[in-house]
């Protein structure tokens, strides 16, 4: 659990919360809810959060999957320096932005979601050593504490669909020389199967180019 990059998840949550705020704001403004001006605020705040969170941050380990066209927003976000780079500031900012939207029914869910994203950003700043000390039960409760309801038991199994095949896309650097294999069977296999056996019958399917 100590290796999880929580900030990446917080980024997805904040982006989704921005969209929820925009939708709630549109419903409130179009439906002419009382205090509909909170709906207008919600649209503006939602757009701001979406623009801020659109660039996906660089991962600590491994390659980062950038969102389409994020480099343009990255240039703008970078201008604000530590105010946007620091996740503590981002967590506080999201919490403050979410509060006014909580006064209106249509946008109250956007508040809840943005507050959760703020909490996950804060969690991402907890040092990994302390996170690793969490026992599995505490970890489950941490996820469930965001759910304002009775917690039922969570299954004990965790399945991780592992594949190292995707690593093949990381091609070796140029100039790397392959070591000659010591196992003669490998040489036999490569020789036999790559070039075809001299006594191979003359069938179109068995010949090699």
């Amino acid at each position, binding site marked *: 659990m100590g290796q999880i990059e929580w900030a990446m998840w917080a980024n997805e*949550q904040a982006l989704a919360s921005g969209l929820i705020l925009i939708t709630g704001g549109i419903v409130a403004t179009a439906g002419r809810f009382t205090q509909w001006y909170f709906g207008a605020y919600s649209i503006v705040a939602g757009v701001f959060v979406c623009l801020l969170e659109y660039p996906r941050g660089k991962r600590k380990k491994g390659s980062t999957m950038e969102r389409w066209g994020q480099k343009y927003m990255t240039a703008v976000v970078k201008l604000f320096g530590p105010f946007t780079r620091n996740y503590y500031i981002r967590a506080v900012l999201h919490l403050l932005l979410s509060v006014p939207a909580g006064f209106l029914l249509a946008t109250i869910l956007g508040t809840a979601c943005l507050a*959760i994203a703020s909490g996950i950003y804060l969690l991402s700043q907890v040092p990994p050593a302390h996170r690793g000390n969490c026992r599995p039960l505490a970890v489950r409760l941490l996820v469930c504490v965001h759910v304002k309801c009775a917690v039922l038991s969570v299954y004990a199994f965790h399945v991780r669909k592992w594949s190292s095949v995707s690593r093949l896309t990381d091609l070796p650097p*140029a100039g790397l020389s392959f070591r000659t294999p010591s196992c003669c069977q*490998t040489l036999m296999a490569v020789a*036999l199967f790559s070039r075809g056996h001299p006594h191979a019958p003359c069938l179109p*399917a068995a010949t090699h180019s």
Partner: protein
Amino acid sequence: MAVSWRSWLANEGVKHLCLFIWLSMNVLLFWKTFLLYNQGPEYHYLHQMLGLGLCLSRASASVLNLNCSLILLPMCRTLLAYLRGSQKVPSRRTRRLLDKSRTFHITCGVTICIFSGVHVAAHLVNALNFSVNYSEDFVELNAARYRDEDPRKLLFTTVPGLTGVCMVVVLFLMITASTYAIRVSNYDIFWYTHNLFFVFYMLLTLHVSGGLLKYQTNLDTHPPGCISLNRTSSQNISLPEYFSEHFHEPFPEGFSKPEEFTQNTFVKICMEEPRFQANFPQTWLWISGPLCLYCAERLYRYIRSNKPVTIISVISHPSDVMEIRMVKENFKARPGQYITLHCPSVSALENHPFTLTMCPTETKATFGVHLKIVGDWTERFRDLLLPPSSQDSEILPFIQSRNYPKLYIDGPFGSPFEESLNYEVSLCVAGGIGVTPFASILNTLLDDWKPYKLRRLYFIWVCRDIQSFRWFADLLCMLHNKFWQENRPDYVNIQLYLSQTDGIQVCENSCRWFEQKFPRGKKTVGVFCCGPNSLSKTLHKLSNQINSYGTRFEYNKESFS
């Protein structure tokens, strides 16, 4: 190149047909429910109060019912593995549909996400309308306690409202953690939050029990829109005056007396006050079956995986690959299937799937997996099984068998690669460690090839490092020798490639392969790929293209993340 309609139909046809059927069911449900609440007489008064929000919320709810029930079915992996292997599904075309189970699960998930948004938005408007349009005439129809009650109170103090908010939060956590970027980089987050689905379903069963939306039960004695005589007599208004107040049009010609008009027009008289009753929670009927099935499957898997395996040997291979051979009582598996490993000494919660590279046979109970050491779990697992000093050489640590940690397995589960033995001609393309499903196929052929339909196998293996070929060098050599000795030298055709820095070479060769290497005539060739996405996408495209010989290529692939 142009697309071959025969190949396209074989590869994409059934999938698209199922998608069309599923879409039609959704559209039909949505439309039927929308019309029911928009025009149905039993919801006349409720519709007057709530308007379009009622129709949209109920229609989206019916779509959610369908998808919440269907989404669990593709996750019953043991059941799917049973269907794949049994004679109950004789058609290969239908079995190939099972390969798309994960894609179908995601499709239902996305639909749930979209229609939950519609449902929530519509119900928020309903909450407002319950408050603003509080009805003094039909008090039991109201959800609000008084006119202009704060709609937020309705949201947080009613069972449907509170459970709905909680469900939105749970769905929000699940959806944000299910994106492709998170699954690829932090699968742990995805898995832990996805287990919240059980909480979601419990909340759903409570959500629909609230009974806030009611229908009218006595339509015959109180047709909607009827005139209530009790009200007119109590207000001392005579009928003609009543009509002149409420109907501004003059009396139609031919009626000389208002009394005749009241008897012969469509306006009905109410015999009694309307009575309302809450809808029966249909959701319980929709989700109970699949939920019970899924819970039964999980229970069965838990019981089946409760006994640990006995590790026979651990072998270290080059390029960070480790092979584990083990035995377990009553364990049966077909070539191409995969299992999940659970080692409590490494992690109490994590299970990791690995394809079987050797399956148990009638004569030999040993089965094995090859693991590539990439993440923290596999690294810790390797350190437990192989001491650091022996990790660089191939060993058979018989002395250390007493120190092996307890290992539990779950499975076996089915995969598309099981079909490779059911074609007359199969083409298997593997990238790196993706060779593992084909290794089990080759091991099975080494044991006995005659019982299977397969008569020719083309095997292409692409690796980054030449040392990687040592993982199965023994197997390839033994297989080659066996077929030469049995005078079937053309049974297996193996090509090994090394990927260079300018790209994977197989892309260039595969075009020629598809054109020249396969038997001429209208044959069906099974194409199987286990490798990087770029490789599988190219092969998929090539499989759908026209070739000069009319050969049909059926493409099979397993999706990982």
